[in-house]
């Protein structure tokens, strides 16, 4: 179970780096089915490009890294999806989703949410229970990442495959077209990175060493220990 987390970390970074490299070859985003340099972009990322055909305002070109980036992107995607399958099946089997991730009935209220956030803001001690289980806000974040963002990023990614779309045209048509799928793929990645930043910050704030030990070995420190 913990192994799947760390494999996901490696695959996610591989996807992020290679995805960024691919964006560099065309840092313009569009909405709808088609989009190219002769059309109006929805927005442009103000970075140089690895293609001379893209007008960027920079006088130089970045080196072309799309070959290995694409190979790495798809290989890491397989690792991520297969690891996700193992995680999903194991979680159903052990009741991890039910026990640790889905919020308890009492916590499915705005009030429970507000309480946790107030606690965070006041930097109040989170109490003994919280070092062993997730609170309402954490549960919401994890459920959103596992059941919304990851499925969405996989879907929008698959919709960019012309062969996949030939078998399942609905995958891309439902997103409003190929360029919309590409733009959504980019935004969903943005949300995943946002989660990553907050997630790492929280681990750091709650005691990096003891959290890391828990995340790697599964063993918690003694109660109250926060090295």
């Amino acid at each position, binding site marked *: 179970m913990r192994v799947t987390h760390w494999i996901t970390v490696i695959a996610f970074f591989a996807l992020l780096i290679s995805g960024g490299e691919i964006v560099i070859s*065309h840092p313009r985003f569009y909405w709808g089915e*088609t989009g190219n340099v002769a*059309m109006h972009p929805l927005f442009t990322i103000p970075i140089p490009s690895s293609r001379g055909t893209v007008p960027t305002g920079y006088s130089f070109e970045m080196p072309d890294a799309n070959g290995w980036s694409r190979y790495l992107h*798809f290989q890491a*995607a397989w690792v991520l999806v297969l690891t996700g399958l193992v995680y999903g099946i194991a979680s159903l089997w052990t009741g991890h989703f039910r026990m640790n991730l889905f919020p308890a009935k009492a916590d499915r209220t705005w009030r429970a949410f507000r309480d946790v956030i107030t606690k965070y803001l006041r930097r109040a001690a989170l109490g003994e229970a919280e070092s062993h289980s997730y609170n309402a806000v954490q549960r919401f974040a994890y459920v959103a990442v596992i059941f919304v963002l990851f499925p969405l990023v996989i879907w929008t990614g698959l919709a960019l*495959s*012309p062969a996949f779309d030939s078998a399942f045209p609905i995958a891309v048509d439902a997103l409003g077209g*190929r360029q919309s799928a590409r733009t959504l793929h980019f935004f969903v990645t943005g949300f995943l990175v946002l989660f990553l930043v907050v997630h790492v910050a929280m681990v750091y704030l709650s005691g990096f060493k003891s959290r890391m030990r828990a995340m790697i070995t599964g063993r918690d420190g003694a109660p109250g220990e926060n090295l």
Partner: protein
Amino acid sequence: MSYFSRRKLVTTGLAVAAGAGGLAVADRVARRYGLIPPDHGGFYGPGETLDYAAQRILTRHSLAREFPRTMISQTPFANAIAPPSDAFKRLQAGGFSDWRLAVDGMVARPGSFSLSDLRSLPVHSQITEVVCEEGWSYIAEWIGTPLHEVLKEVGTLPQARYVAYFSIERDWWDSIDMADALHPQTFLTMGMNDGDLPVGFGGPLRLRVPRQLGYKSVKYVARLTVTDSVKRFGKGLGSAAPEGGYAWYAGI
């Protein structure tokens, strides 16, 4: 060593053994059904093989999306190309009337086709999207002779597994498997949007493979070779793309 109970060791051992056995079976099945791409070696081989195998299982006969005429791009983008060779310029000066498509390899009747020979075969049109691996795209109407009509004309031998295709320009070639070669939307394209195919877009003759990314649609095609193995072309990776670091299979 209290982390590892005997039960854990046994189940892990069984899982590893099942995994290894499963991989061996998968390898045999994949070879039997032609699910291994030419560039299956190296660090990225597993990912490339999974891409190709999964696509062949899911999309062997599926048709690329076609669009209504109203969605044809007003501003299609012809990607940058190297300056044409002297051989190309000579043929262009003659209005491409001497352009020939040579077809050889594992065929019963090797031959060569002029553009008007190709036009005398059934000509079809499709409105499909060109998708570049960089991210941009456009939709156009493509008019041409399906590749399978030419393959029927020359009589493909049963052991054929790939069709390699070569541009008149140097070091520009690629190959597709028979699933794509016999696919009804794989065109030897001569026209675009009701006119002749412009040189910028690959005219006079471009092999359009609409279920794969743009770089598989080689421009200025002058030769086709039907083969059972792509090992003897270039570095044996199936196209010039893997030699430049790009995947042979570009349906993704």
